[in-house]
């Protein structure tokens, strides 16, 4: 090993490493506290389960396992402390490089322990929250028997949400494009159309969707508007969602159409293609590829907003869950519909992330 005199200047020797022992000690204390806290929470959980007569051998086995897991936190903490000790010993032998390597390792192990300890403590705080009031919180949201009993009913009603957003998405794709094209009609003759389209997008982007649904789905039959008044509330809700989300999607389309370089317009027009032929064959096909990620984002928002149709009495998944919840004074059925929404939307958001990532790689290359 290189023996270096710590008195020498930096130009000829490595600098003296800082002692990592305090940090390693902190890590050990934090880990130990989390372990103790975890045991307290698990003990309480055991009590609640006992009360509810949920004591099977495998429940106890799981609890024991859960109690052993936090002990793993101590491993990196102890390891950090040991490396810090070795660093000090190396420093005493004037082996500066070894001391620095050991101290760095000690710090890394200490942070490793602290990071996991913080994450674990958050998990146990969440469990503690569910156990509050002798498990009343947990039972309100996650009463397994009620989730089991109501699942079929909620799922059936949830299909109405799925059907509504599927139908609405088709209409929105068409309607949004119509508005977007209306906003870019050229020339003086097109200016009133452009103006109206702008007013429309501003108005409905400024209006909360729930109010649009309320006004359209309740208002049109109330005002006895011919033709529309006989529509079932589901279709009126789809109309409201289309009108509302059409404004957002029109903006997405417009951004996409704007993003196509003007030279593509020049090239197409110079070949004799008309304005509408240029849009149809050259601009829109390129724009659509670019807007798929933001479009999907809007559709995910739309899918969640189908839950708003309960304000006009459509029995969708959320409304059904609400009915069950008020009959049973327990929200577990609503938890079911919440999980159903997440099951549908999370894969899509992941998919959008991947598309965006791919787009980023493509444009960077």
């Amino acid at each position, binding site marked *: 090993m290189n023996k270096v005199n710590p008195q020498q200047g930096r130009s000829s020797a490595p600098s003296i490493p800082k002692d990592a022992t305090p940090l390693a000690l902190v890590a050990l204390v934090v880990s130990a506290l989390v372990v103790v806290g975890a045991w307290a929470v698990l003990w309480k959980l055991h009590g609640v389960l006992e009360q509810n007569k949920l004591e099977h051998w495998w429940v106890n086995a799981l609890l024991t396992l859960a109690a052993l897991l936090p002990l793993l936190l101590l491993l990196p903490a102890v390891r950090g402390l040991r490396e810090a000790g070795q660093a000090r010993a190396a420093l005493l032998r004037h082996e500066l490089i070894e001391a620095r390597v050991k101290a760095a390792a000690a710090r890394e192990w200490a942070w490793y322990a602290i990071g996991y300890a913080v994450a674990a403590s958050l998990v146990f705080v969440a469990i503690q929250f569910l156990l509050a009031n002798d498990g009343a919180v947990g039972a309100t949201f996650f009463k397994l028997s009620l989730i089991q009993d109501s699942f079929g009913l909620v799922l059936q009603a949830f299909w109405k949400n799925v059907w509504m957003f599927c139908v609405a998405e088709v209409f929105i794709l068409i309607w949004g494009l119509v508005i977007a094209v209306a906003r870019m009609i050229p020339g003086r003759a097109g200016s009133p159309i452009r103006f109206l389209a702008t007013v429309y997008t501003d108005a409905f982007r400024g209006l909360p969707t729930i109010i649009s649904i309320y006004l359209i789905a309740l208002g049109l039959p109330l005002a006895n508007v011919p033709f529309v008044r006989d529509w079932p509330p589901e279709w009126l809700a789809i109309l409201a969602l289309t009108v509302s989300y059409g404004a957002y999607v029109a903006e997405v389309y417009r951004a996409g159409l704007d993003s196509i370089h003007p030279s593509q317009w020049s*090239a197409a027009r110079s070949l*004799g*293609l008309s304005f509408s*032929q240029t849009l149809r*064959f050259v601009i829109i096909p390129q724009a659509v590829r670019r807007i798929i990620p933001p479009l999907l984002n809007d559709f995910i928002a739309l899918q969640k907003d189908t839950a708003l149709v309960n304000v006009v009495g459509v029995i969708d998944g959320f409304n059904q869950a609400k009915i069950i919840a008020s009959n049973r004074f327990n929200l577990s059925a609503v938890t079911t519909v919440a999980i159903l929404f997440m099951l549908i939307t999370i894969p899509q958001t992941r998919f959008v992330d991947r598309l965006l990532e791919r787009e980023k790689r493509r444009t960077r290359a």
Partner: protein
Amino acid sequence: MSFLEIRDVHKHYGNVEVLRGINLNVEEHQVVCLIGPSGCGKSTLLRCVNGLEAISAGEIRMEGDRITGPGVDLDRLRREVGIVFQSFNLFPHMTVLQNVTLAPVQVLKMPKAEAEARAMELLRRIGLEHKAGEYPDRLSGGQQQRVAIVRALAMEPKLMLLDEITSALDPELVSEVLNLLRQLAAEGMTMMLATHEMGFAKEVASKVCFLHQGVVHEEGPPEQIFGNPQKERTQAFLSSIIEAGRL
């Protein structure tokens, strides 16, 4: 009456006057080269000839018919006047074959099979028939530019406008594009090209026009412009080109 007559054409963007009274005649089967420093109005003039830019004053006539001002059917004009751009501007979402057949099918209403047969014939001519199914991003710059030329040729234009079509190419790819232009010139295609390829201009041009500050400062046969320029500005421009080793 000349094939193309450009009379006192002015063009301004806001307060910036780019063209300040251009006068120029192009005869059928002529190759007219526009040379001059950047910003002298070469590209703008070409874009005005096929109506991509509206002129502010003056007029342009083709075969005696006015092609500027109100009431002109620009889509019809553009069927007869093709333009090729510096940056190729192929449609990236279409294959090479689709790029070439789009306008004949949609604008000339040619049956698809016929348009494809003719497009393949043109691609064979430039040796790119094996790339017909590829997308433009799989082609080199020179190949893309040749496809862009063929795309314009597929409309069988009477006049081709070429706007610095080799400026964006790597040096080793320039010749394949210029060779195609030589062929076209030999076949009698009427062409107007803005270019920095002085050697090429010297070789194929029927007439060279030096543009300076928005007017045709000097024009004449290539031997005169390159060999014995009369005006001081032309001499200065050409000597800086020679200094750069481009002539």
